């Protein structure tokens, strides 16, 4: 929102994300910084950023599906897994180039997602949320029990690095750039969807699906669409993940991962694309800083012993989430909006 005194003069301007010149400049600088990161930041943070970018894509999908369209989904990791496996199979068994295998992974994940989208037509609220856990279970079961030849079963699938015009995305920086570019496309798309007709009907279905029906919105299609989009994002994220680790197994996509994804959109704030990104950043930072704090602590206070220290770390993590919820249940984005609102009214108190 603009500060007091600045008003939009055209609908186009009123709708656009970036209103003032300063906003444009900040954004530009930020992007430049992201691209320059591997040059100045140390390796660790590049690796963390890479995993953040991948997570961001997945969580963005969850945000669209859950935060925007209100279809709570606790199976996002499974969708991610489907994407990762499809990409891996296509790349390693059919030798598709990554620029084909990656989107294809997204598509397969989307198809898997639509199944639950259709279930969502009848099943609502908690019931839906909990049925999506079934996605997790079924994914696990099928990968393990389908013939080894297909999905590698318990063996998992190994992959070659992504390759474009002979350049191998193999080094940490290389993978980082790959993820950065893909993630930026997906994020831009996320904003696009959220602001356009589709984002609106998603929100409409979330708020009141009876009324939406009478506005001429095909609720069945819309819910299915929400899952499709969400799962597609998950699939793309999964594909990136596959190219990042270059070895996929089921235990990389478990229920606890899905739960962490949810935690991220909560902390960031439901329904806001930016919120999702913030959530990913905050939570992953917390996780990383805690995992790197551990060894330090142990060296400082050896008698504590590793098990105690690291166990304590879990308490912190859980505490962080719970804390956020208690003190800002609507997520950081909400706090931010309020700040902006009062900033707009400034200098008047209310």
């Amino acid at each position, binding site marked *: 929102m603009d500060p007091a005194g600045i008003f939009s003069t055209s609908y186009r301007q009123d709708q656009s994300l970036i209103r003032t010149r300063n906003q444009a400049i900040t954004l530009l600088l930020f992007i430049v910084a992201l691209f320059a990161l591997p040059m100045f930041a140390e390796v660790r943070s590049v690796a963390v950023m890479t995993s953040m970018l991948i997570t961001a894509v997945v969580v963005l999908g969850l945000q669209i599906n859950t935060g925007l369209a209100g279809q709570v989904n606790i199976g996002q990791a499974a969708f991610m897994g489907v994407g990762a496996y499809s990409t891996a199979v296509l790349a390693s068994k059919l030798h598709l180039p990554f620029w084909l295998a990656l989107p294809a992974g997204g598509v397969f994940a989307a198809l898997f997602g639509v199944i639950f989208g259709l279930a969502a037509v009848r099943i609502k609220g908690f019931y839906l949320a909990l049925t999506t856990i079934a996605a997790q279970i079924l994914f696990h*079961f099928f990968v393990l029990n389908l013939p080894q030849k297909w999905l590698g079963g318990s063996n998992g699938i190994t992959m070659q690095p992504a390759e474009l015009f002979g350049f191998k995305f193999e080094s940490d920086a290389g993978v980082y750039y790959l993820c950065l570019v893909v993630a930026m496309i997906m994020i831009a798309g996320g904003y696009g969807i959220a602001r356009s007709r589709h984002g609106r009907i998603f929100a409409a279905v979330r708020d009141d699906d009876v009324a939406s029906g009478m506005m001429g919105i095909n609720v069945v299609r819309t819910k299915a669409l929400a899952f499709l989009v969400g799962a597609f994002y998950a699939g793309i994220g999964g594909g990136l993940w596959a190219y990042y680790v270059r070895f996929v197994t089921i235990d990389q996509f478990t229920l606890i991962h899905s739960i962490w994804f949810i935690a991220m959109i909560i902390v960031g704030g439901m329904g806001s694309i930016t919120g999702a990104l913030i959530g990913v950043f905050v939570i992953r930072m917390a996780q990383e800083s805690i995992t790197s704090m551990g060894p330090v602590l142990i060296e400082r206070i050896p008698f504590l012993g590793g098990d105690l220290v690291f166990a304590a770390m879990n308490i912190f993590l859980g505490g962080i989430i719970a804390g956020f919820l208690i003190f800002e249940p609507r997520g950081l984005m909400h706090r931010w909006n309020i700040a902006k609102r009062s900033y707009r009214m400034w200098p008047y108190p209310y």
Partner: protein
Amino acid sequence: MIDFLNYLINGALTGLLYALIAMGFVVIYRASKVFNFAQGELVVFGGYMVWWTVIQMGLPLWIGLPVAFVSAAIFGLMIERIFFARLVGESIFSMVMVTIGLLILIRGVVLVLFGPQVRAFPMVFPIEPLIFGDILISRSMLYGGLLTIAIGFGLSWFFNKTRAGLTMTAVAEDHQVAMSMGISVQRSIAFAWILGSILSTLGAMVHLSGRSINMLSSDIGLAALPVALLAGLESLAGLLLAGVLVGVIQGLASAYLDPLVGGAIGSVFPFIIMLLMLLIRPTGMFGWKTIERV
């Protein structure tokens, strides 16, 4: 044939165990409208309480168990005090999400307090099974099952017939409306968590009697999930039926299908049943139908 009977009976008993665990979900839901994702962790915590009093402190069962239940209850109360007291009046959703935070948090707490080792769980029920001809029934499961049935009907009566129970049900209907009637949402939530923790401890007792406990024991929470949904989140007596249903089908599936498939198909069956049932009846067998007036 005898095999079949065995699978049937034991499947039913396992199902009742699931029902007992699921009761933890439902009680909390029925008195606060919050779905508790940390149910499995509550079970583990309760279990460790029993381990701690009986094995660690070496108290005899008849003292140890009550102490364990009391401390579990206190734990439940603490959860309400620390997390939900502040959230009264906030959206249900954020409350539910807090339970996700709890899930991670309790894991840490348990690791710190009791360590990660696999611990011996006290032999609450005698180990030798009851044997009728070729049918044998584990005592812990049998007694547990009977207990579950009793509690199931008891709670169902409490929530549907007594004034206190209905008052909490009102909270599950709508926090704001309940408040406008002077119902203390907070007290109701506290009660929910206390009862939930106690039931979880009970569940742990039946589930783990004479076996072992560690972090992984929380998986039972996931296994009980389909039962809760199958019955419908508001229904307590319904859990019994749902539990038996799930237990029997799972038992038979893993006995007859696993060898054919060469995989653990038995463990996915409950979820498949759940999915199908919900597609037919979106709020489970006995859950509240959503009322849509336009």
